[in-house]
């Protein structure tokens, strides 16, 4: 549909009057702004000394949560690995020890390649038992690719570190595994 001519506004170059043609008032105006900022508060964050305040939903390094008994919460349902668009989660499931009465499986290994991960948070969203969470740890470094592949112990230690430091409290306090962890009904 063509534009109605009444809707078209033709904009021309603004005419400079006496005040603008003197140049100096405009310069003084500019100086007022810049000199004001010269003595104003500074916004620089002195990074290594001054840590940034990150929002609690920041998506940094993963962790595997522990339950009240200190066991890994994960029930090895593979939903995170399935949801992962980068295919960076590798789980080997094993039958849960008989004394773990609330679940039938647990992860024998749980490996996340932190270099392949795109930190989208879909694993966290997919997890039915709130076992995997992204923390606010952002300064993740390593000397080799192998170092950046985190296994179960490492991911659990991330949980211990972040909850201990108080930066990332456990987000769900239900303390109960969800129905997906329950053993299938007996036939």
């Amino acid at each position, binding site marked *: *549909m063509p*534009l109605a001519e009444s809707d078209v506004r033709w904009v021309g170059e603004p005419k400079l009057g006496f005040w*603008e043609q003197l140049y100096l008032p405009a310069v003084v105006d*500019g100086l007022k702004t810049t000199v004001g900022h*010269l003595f104003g508060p500074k916004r*620089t964050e002195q990074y290594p000394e001054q840590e940034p305040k990150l929002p609690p939903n920041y998506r940094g390094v993963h962790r595997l949560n522990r339950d009240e008994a200190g066991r890994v919460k994960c029930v090895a349902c593979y939903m995170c690995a399935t949801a992962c668009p980068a295919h960076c989660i590798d789980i080997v499931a094993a039958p849960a020890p008989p004394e773990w009465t609330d679940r039938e499986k647990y992860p024998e290994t749980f490996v996340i390649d932190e270099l392949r991960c795109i930190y989208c948070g879909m694993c966290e969203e997919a997890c039915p038992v709130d076992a995997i969470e992204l923390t606010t740890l952002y300064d993740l470094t390593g000397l080799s690719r192998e170092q950046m592949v985190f296994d179960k112990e490492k991911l659990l230690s991330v949980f211990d570190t972040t909850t201990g430091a108080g930066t990332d409290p456990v987000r769900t306090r239900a303390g109960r595994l969800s129905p997906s962890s329950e053993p299938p009904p007996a036939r």
Partner: protein
Amino acid sequence: MPAFDLTTLAIVIVGLMGGVLGVVGYLTLGERKISAWMQDRLGPNRVGPGGLLQPLADGGKFFLKEELIPDHVDRVFYLLAPAVAVITSLLAIAVVPFGGTTPAPDPQPTVAAFDAAQADYRSHFSAVMAPGLDVGVLYVFALGSLAVYAVILAGWSANNKYSLLGALRSSAQIISYEIPLGMSVLGVVLLVGSLNLERIVAWQAPQPDGTHHGWLVLYQPLAFLLFMTAAYAEGSRLPFDLPEAEQELVGGYHTEYSSMKLGLMLMAEYVHLVTAGFIVSILFFGGWSFFGLENAVSDPVWGAVLKAAILIAKMLSYCVFAQVIRWTIPRFRFDQLMNLAWKVMIPLALFNLVCVIVVGQLGWPLVTLTVTSAALFVGAGLASARGSVTNPRRAVPKLPPGLPAGVTYASR
């Protein structure tokens, strides 16, 4: 001329060059700090306390960088250009007083009187590398315009279109702004009656006969404005930094330079700024005089130190002001740049010169010049606003309503 004493001269030269280059180093830090503060940042603060050793780190970096000479350059001129840049900028310092001075004697009727006057002049201390040079202002301007050779040599020999464009812009700009630069100073020179910088300072200080003219900026404010603007353009400072407009020309005329050769190019620009600071302080702000403060100390040695401190403080405040301006005003477009020089500044400088001549001839009080300067400034604004000079009222063809030619809507 004062006696030629090699040891004293060597000490003065080494001290002054070292001092100027030290100031240049810290001007780079100042530039970065000021720009940072204006943008609500902190600026470099990691090297040394508060970043104070940053210039050393920068200088060391320049020396340690790879010295790259591209294959396609004209080696002779390519290597010559940084040398020319630094030599011309440093040579200009030679006649600039950096502290207390005694005015050079007047011409004398007899040889004996001349010798006596010179002996008297020699017995006073002058904080100048080459004291008593009667063409001081001309010498500074001559070397300032030689600096354009460095830019042109660098741009031409680099065999690179960005360098060449930068050099061409620079030559047009510097040649254009040389005219208002020189003509704005002519008023000062006419008032004082001498080209000698030491005498120009002495004119502004209290006279032996009790009269006191005061700073020349009071009588020549318009000339000061024109001179400062033209000096920014001569030194390619930011409102006029078209020769090295990073957004358009990569690096401008020094695109192909690396390592210390680039360092020399950049250093020369800051030396120009320092020279301009000294010249402005001397021509318009009374040199080492500061409301009688310069006489606060009676000891001759400490008095000389105090005068040098006053002059250097004035120079530094000019440099800081130039940096504040640099981070405040955006770059001119090239046609605006040329308009400003040829249609505004040169006529204004000429009118100002005529006013000085008329006032001097009729023997009117100096305050008249302040009034005429203000009148010229306002008059220029009025003339421009009426569209007669800088933006002539052209009949702008009114576009027909509808779409511009060649543009159609996509059909649905």
